[in-house]
């Protein structure tokens, strides 16, 4: 134990010295021919203090010095689980649902806006979860399907005046077709090749959106997309329908909520179906899955298509909500952000991904001052999660038992 801690501290010291050597050339050499040290040391000391606290907590926790904190926390956890257990699960679902329904009534416009964002990203995250978490294929161009969905609605609506509800399935279908087009040539590859090819495809879609002036209006984007409309029966002067434009954020929130609930149910059902089991077997060992009679090609293509389908749905909602689309919204960084949500929450775990989305969308809203550090923290989160907790914050529960696990 002591030996281990010595090793940790030694590595930490080396690492911090390395960081100092890295920071100084970037911060201390100036174009006017001067060398300074103060700024480097200030930044370095901040980092040193921050990491030192984290490391102290980690070491103390490992050494059992934090029992005075962990014991009561465990106690609270236990009492919570004791309180939760007696009620069946649907009670909690109802509670959460009711909270979600009254949420826009008790909060302001800004909070509702953030919540809509969270709901759309939940759809995206769960869609990507099908590809990455269940089928185990790293897809780095996922946001392209979101873009296809958004542009489908925007173009059809602005150019041809087609309504939202007709475009919604079309957006999903187009995204699915795009998914199949990407999937078909790439699915013969595995792992890292697949990752980089999907990255390439994502870039191709963005470049095409950027340059196809006639259809997409290029980098300027498409303005004036109509919001969602619904027909409301009116009983004055007999009976007729009236078009109601959902312009108010509150109403749109309910549409996003409905979409998110549908996606959650859909992904849950897929996960616990024969298809979900096939995906998991492909993730664990593709060769073995094929030997067991799983048609790996079809199932991988299906995973791709399903992921793209959910992204297309979310994309159409995105276009209807922003009422403006431009290629700027569909860059690689967006893909990386969705991936980071999935990784943080736990690949394959639906509650985990919801938590991951909330953490990565809502927290930056609270910490506005650290806006420019956002992507830096995302990157660091991904590395740290992979190093210390690869299964995510809420690890996925396995379907069935594995042979090596004891009864």
């Amino acid at each position, binding site marked *: 134990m002591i030996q281990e801690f010595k090793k940790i501290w030694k590595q930490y010291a080396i*690492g911090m010295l*390395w*960081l100092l*050597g*890295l*920071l100084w*050339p*970037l*911060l201390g*050499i*100036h*174009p*006017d*021919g*001067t060398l300074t040290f103060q700024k480097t040391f200030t930044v370095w000391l901040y980092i040193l203090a921050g990491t030192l606290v984290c490391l102290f907590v980690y070491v103390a926790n490992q050494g059992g010095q934090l029992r005075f904190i962990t014991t009561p926390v465990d106690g609270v956890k236990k009492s919570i689980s004791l309180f939760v257990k007696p009620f069946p699960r649907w009670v909690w679902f109802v509670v959460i649902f009711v909270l979600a329904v009254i949420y826009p009534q008790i909060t302001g416009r800004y909070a509702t806006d953030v919540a809509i964002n969270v709901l759309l990203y939940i759809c995206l995250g769960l869609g990507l979860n099908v590809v*990455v978490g269940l089928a*185990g294929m*790293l897809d*780095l161009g996922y946001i392209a399907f979101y873009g296809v969905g958004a542009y489908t609605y925007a173009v059809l609506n602005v150019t041809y005046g087609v309504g939202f509800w007709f475009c919604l399935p079309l957006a999903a279908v187009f995204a699915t077709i795009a998914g199949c087009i990407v999937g078909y*040539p*790439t699915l*013969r*590859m*595995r*792992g*890292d*090749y697949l*990752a*980089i*090819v999907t*990255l*390439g*495809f994502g*870039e*191709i879609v963005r*470049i*095409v959106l*950027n*340059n196809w002036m006639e259809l997409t209006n290029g980098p300027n984007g498409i303005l004036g997309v109509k919001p969602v409309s619904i027909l409301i029966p009116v009983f004055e002067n007999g009976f007729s329908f009236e078009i109601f434009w959902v312009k108010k954020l509150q109403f749109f929130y309910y549409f996003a909520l409905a979409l998110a609930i549908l996606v959650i149910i859909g992904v849950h059902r897929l996960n616990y179906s024969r298809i979900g089991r096939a995906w998991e077997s492909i993730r664990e060992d593709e*060769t073995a899955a094929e030997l067991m009679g799983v048609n790996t090609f079809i199932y991988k293509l299906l995973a791709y298509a399903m992921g793209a389908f959910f992204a297309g749905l979310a994309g159409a909602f995105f276009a209807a909500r922003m009422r403006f689309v431009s290629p700027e919204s569909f860059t*690689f*960084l967006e893909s*990386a952000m969705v*991936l*980071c949500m999935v*990784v943080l929450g736990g690949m394959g775990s639906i509650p985990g991904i919801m938590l991951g989305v909330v953490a990565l969308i809502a927290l930056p809203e609270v910490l506005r001052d650290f806006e*420019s*550090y956002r*992507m*830096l923290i*995302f*990157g*660091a*989160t*991904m*590395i740290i999660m*992979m*190093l210390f907790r*690869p299964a995510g914050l809420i690890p996925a529960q396995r379907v069935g038992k594995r042979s090596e696990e004891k009864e």
Partner: protein
Amino acid sequence: MEYFIQQLINGLTLGGVYALIALGYTMVYGVIQLINFAHGEFFAAGGYMGVIVLSYFAGLGYMETHPVFCLTASFALSMAFCAYLAIGVEKIAYKPLRKESRLAALLSALGMSIFLSNGLMLTQGVYDKAYPSELFQGGLSFGLVTVSYLQMLIVCLTGALLVGLNILVFKTKIGMAMRATAQDKTMSALVSISSNRIISLTFAIGAGLAAAAGIMVGLYYGSVRYDMGFVPGIKAFAAAVLGGIGNITGAMVGGLIIGMVEIFGAGYLSGEYKDVFAFIILIAVLYFKPTGIMGENIDDTRV
């Protein structure tokens, strides 16, 4: 015809740069079978270090009096800096995950890439950073074809680095150790080759080459940006795959081909879609011949 030759020279310049970056991908893939997503960021960091050192010397006024010294120093310092960066990155983000699943290592590499490019942004600013422009004005004209001095420098330097690397890998003991590690880690460990050290060395060499490429691109286009590593990174990866990943000669050839295709595609087909050509080549190669032009045995787990 003049246009064609002019484009050929431009393609050679760009192709050399891609070849330098592609070597890093291919060498790292050779030893640890992992795509180093952060490699493009080494390239960008190299470009930044170049501009930092060059403008420091320009600020001191050495640029007019000792231009050769300034340029040499910027290349040397920048390559050293990136090698130093790459060794640390490997120790933090890749080494602990060597035995984990490939997905974990890939995600960690991706996180490192995002982290580094944003770290560059935070320390160096969001906007383009201009290279001191007084260097390399003019060029030689052969009839209607002009070759700028800068292009000559890039081509010569790239050639020298490639030859140097070939000598290092195929003629020295260190190179032999690297090739042995790439083939079989256990067996090379038995003949007392420290695989950790070789992996660090490979990362350092790859990052050094990428840094040289970064300075060249910075000099050629006149400025650097924090996210400049992303697209050239994918294109260089395409080059590495085209040449057969893990194969050093293949990466050089692949880099030249990708550079040529991009320049000719932009010149004769469409300038707006120039980035697409490299991706299409990448996808086509992976679909029809995943081993690449010069790739040898690729077992099932790799592709």
